[in-house]
């Protein structure tokens, strides 16, 4: 990659980044202001910053408890998706079994159907029939295995060179062994993508946990924040600031996660596994 020609590209990227980040910047500034400032000069915090909004929102909804609930919900989904999704993705890509095509078609169909169509039947099934209302399991269940993740795993396994597997089969290795020793160790780049993508859904999900949990101590942060916005915010001294403070708290862990893991997206990783 030639360095000299990358100047205009850098400039374009940085300008783009500024546009992308501006609403966030505004959000963070807003959460640190004592009074709502709607003018252009409000972009620069001239009146000083304060943590009052954070204190206020922590007083109205237990931030720590909500964060823990969000963590449990999201963690449960990621765990189930990674474990069962890898297996299913591998099976769909590399193994020939009866019903494979049908399963693939069904998996695609899942993407297409909007959640709002299924939400009430699901709710009746999970709360009435299974009795899982007000429980973490009830929250996790409809999201347990993310189909986009299964798709990504499948595409990933498909892209692996056939020779790897053919060689192992000729050597007499059993399918399980191939899965364990060859396929799984290679899955790391896809794994990271999947974790990052699967994280967002449950972390920011409003509708489902809200329906399923009436007990406030079980609600994840996204739901508590939405409740706060609809009902209590009007009484706070700077409701706008408190809402933004809650939103910053909601967004921070995911951004942190991404920053921590994004450096693994480099091109050298996969190439080495295939050569020679």
């Amino acid at each position, binding site marked *: 990659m030639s360095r000299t020609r990358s100047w205009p590209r850098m400039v374009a990227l940085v300008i783009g980044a500024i546009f992308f980040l501006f609403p966030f910047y505004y959000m963070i500034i807003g959460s640190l202001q004592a009074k709502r400032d709607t003018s252009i000069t409000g972009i620069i915090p001239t009146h000083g910053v304060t943590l009052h909004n954070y204190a206020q929102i922590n007083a109205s909804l237990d931030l720590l408890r909500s964060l823990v609930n969000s963590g449990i919900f999201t963690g449960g989904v990621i765990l189930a998706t990674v474990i069962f999704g890898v297996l299913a993705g591998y099976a769909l890509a590399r193994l020939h079994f009866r019903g494979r095509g049908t399963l693939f078609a069904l998996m695609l169909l899942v993407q297409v159907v909007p959640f709002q169509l299924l939400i009430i039947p699901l*709710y009746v099934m999970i709360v009435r029939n299974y009795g899982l209302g007000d429980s973490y399991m009830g929250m996790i269940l409809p999201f347990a295995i993310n189909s986009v993740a299964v798709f990504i795993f499948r595409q990933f396994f498909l892209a692996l060179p056939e020779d790897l597997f053919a060689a192992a089969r000729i050597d007499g290795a059993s399918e399980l062994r191939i899965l364990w020793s060859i396929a799984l160790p290679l899955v790391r780049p896809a794994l990271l993508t999947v974790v990052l993508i699967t994280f967002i859904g449950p972390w920011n999900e409003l509708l489902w946990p809200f329906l399923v949990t009436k007990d406030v101590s079980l609600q994840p942060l996204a739901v508590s924040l939405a409740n706060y916005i609809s009902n209590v915010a009007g*009484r706070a001294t700077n409701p706008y600031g408190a809402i933004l403070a809650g939103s910053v708290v909601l967004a921070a862990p995911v951004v942190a996660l991404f920053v921590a893991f994004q450096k693994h997206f480099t091109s050298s990783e996969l190439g080495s596994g295939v050569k020679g």
Partner: protein
Amino acid sequence: MKKKVYAAAVITLAMATTAACSSSGGTTASGGSALTAHGPIKVWLSNNPEEVTWGTSMVKAWNAAHPKELVTAQQIPAGKTSEEVIGAAITAGNAPCLVYNTSPSAVPGFQKQGGLVALDSFPDAKAYIQARNGTAADQYKSPDGKFYQLPWKSNPVMIFYNKDMMKKAGIDPSAPPLSTYADFLATSKKIVASGAAKAAIWPAPTSEFFQSWFDFYPLYAAESGGKQLIENNKATFDSAAGKSVANFWRTIYADKLAPQEVYTGDSFADQKAAMAVVGPWAIPVYKGKVNWGVAPVPTSTGMPASAIHTFSDAKNVAIYSACKNQGTAWDLLKFSTSQAQDGALLTTTGQMPLRQDVPTVYASYLSTHPSYKMFADQVARTVEVPNVNNSIAIWQAFRDSYSSSVIFGKTPVDAALTSTAAKVTTLAGQP
């Protein structure tokens, strides 16, 4: 690929049949025994902080006197609308015994779901309701003649105005001319022209089904002398009164006296609007923020305040069929709507209990709190949403057409009223 898609479709259809078998039918609940059973129960209160305060102390008083029938109260799980929450709870079978936040517009829907208990099943219910509410209770009867809700409290909507802004615009803050449409429009123009406020008044221009309750409906109640939107299953608003109100609001939007964009927050409390159409629950919110005064809603030619009707914005209480100890629920309901508890409600929240004797029974409180007196007098002349089938769909249809014709001026107002009236009448007639 075709074969696989076909197979997937077959699986879905198979699931459909299974689903159908499991969803229909079911055993009938033994209503008889639950009706007289006594024991611990759960209730939901609204999220309004003052109501929660009242509710908690009411429950405490009950629990002290009834240790074998303890009541657990919690705030209603919040959402965009309480109807969604309660409807979902009814479907799941985990609704509480009482909900102190049942909207009259949702009662037909809940009733259809089989989620409510007819209060008439309790032998003393009819008499109790009649004694407490008088003839005003009739607005709350269901089409089958029974009461599925107890009319509890009302927030008669009136016009709040910002006295400081009036003064700034050169209008007398103790008696601004707001009683006829002509006066109201002239006052509004003065306010906006003088720069005293960004908007003369700022009703929410959004399309949720309930928004019309705070712009069109109160004025229509006044102008029509107390008519509901629908009477005898027919729309009433395709009339001189309805047209008059709709055209008034059209003028307000056309002359830019009210913005077409929503304000996130309370525009009156944040001093962006000089007036607001709201009820007494907002008084604690405005305290210390706005120097406010109150006037009745305007009518086209002006009426004496004692003749003006308005929207009640009532919230009622209902007993839900999932309740196991309905005997206790009914007893608690009577306890919480007794004269003492209604008085506590009034003094704690400022909202008006729906009793026929409010101005007399609580006269001493009202004389020491004159700001509430106007609302107390208004309680006798409130109009409720009609108790008809498909009431939410009706309000949504009305709002959509109102938004298009009155707020955004896309379609002519009178014609829109006529076509919506036809649509609404059809909806009311459907099961």
